[in-house]
């Protein structure tokens, strides 16, 4: 038997209560402070910011060739290189001791609003010796966070996923203590007339737009031929 329309009132009231309570809770969670972080731009670089630091290194100190990469975490070209070329470079050249990689931040703040926060998140991961894990997570997640209103939440997630002490990471992000280090890195790139990202510096020569893994291998082979196998 069909219920009388009047008998539906408690049901619709219950639906209304659930909808209002649910949307209210979601709204509160979306609008509450996100522990958002802002990394200042154009800060004065202090000597302490760069003491003993000239980029994030990967590979043997004895490697005969070094590549310095100037890159921006929010740049799509840098992401493509990181995801498609770098694993091969790492396996073929870095892990075999033939190449040392030096990563330097070159944040393009005017077009990439999250890039400096991303660079700082990676710097905070380096405090806990997980720079490259964070570096990889940030690039892998770039399609997710690059259009977000606030990317810091994504980086917080990556910090948790790669196993950082999240409390220490949060404190590092809030302090913005690596703003000077990032600025120094950007200043260095500007001084070298780096104009695009990624740009590689190899044996004193700049390679704007980067190189593929094959091109890098040929270059390394020409600069430091591999030892002949018997």
């Amino acid at each position: 038997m069909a219920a009388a329309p009047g008998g539906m009132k408690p049901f619709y009231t219950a639906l209304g209560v659930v909808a209002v309570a649910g949307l209210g809770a979601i709204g509160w969670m979306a609008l509450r402070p996100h522990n958002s972080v802002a990394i200042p731009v154009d800060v004065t670089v202090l000597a302490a910011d760069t003491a003993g630091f000239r980029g994030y290194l990967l590979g043997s100190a004895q490697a005969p060739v070094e590549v310095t990469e100037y890159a921006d975490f929010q740049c799509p070209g840098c992401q493509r290189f990181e995801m498609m070329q770098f694993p091969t470079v790492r396996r073929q050249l870095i892990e075999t001791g033939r190449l040392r990689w030096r990563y330097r931040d070159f944040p393009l703040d005017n077009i990439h609003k999250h890039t400096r926060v991303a660079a700082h998140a990676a710097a905070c991961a380096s405090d806990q010796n997980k720079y490259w894990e964070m570096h990889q997570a940030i690039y892998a997640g770039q399609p997710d966070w690059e259009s977000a209103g606030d990317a810091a939440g994504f980086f917080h997630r990556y910090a948790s996923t790669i196993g950082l002490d999240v409390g220490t990471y949060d404190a590092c992000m809030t302090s913005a203590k690596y703003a000077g280090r990032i600025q120094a890195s950007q200043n260095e790139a500007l001084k070298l007339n780096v104009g695009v990202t990624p740009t590689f510096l190899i044996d004193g020569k700049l390679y704007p737009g980067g190189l593929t893994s094959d091109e890098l291998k040929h270059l390394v082979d020409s600069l430091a031929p591999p030892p002949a196998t018997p």
Partner: protein
Amino acid sequence: MKLRMVAALLSLVGLMVATYLYLYKIGIVGTMVCGTGACELVQTSRWSRFLGVEVSLLGVLGYLAMFGVSLAGVQPALQQRRWPASALLLLATGALLFSAYLTYAELFLIHAICRWCVVSAVIVLLLFLVAFYGWRRGRAS
């Protein structure tokens, strides 16, 4: 009738949970309120996408469909019709199987539990039971 009302209420609660998870995934909700669970680990794992689509978005669409069907089923014109019960059972069965797959992934592949996912799994289980009971009752009468 009452069972369809319960189904509508349950699917509305599920819709809220799935919406929250989806808003988190697209960066609108900053950090997730999760208690001692491992929501972030689960939500950033590769199992948080299914065939390239966010699982939470599939949840939003699934709950929305179940809410629509159960709400339609309580309307006077459709209260005596059987198709809403069948459609609800079909949707709830799909949701239950998918939820079982996700729970398996949490327990045995990710080795972490997201409390919101558990809430959603319980809602889906209740929805299935309500849908099944409603469908059987309609068949018997």
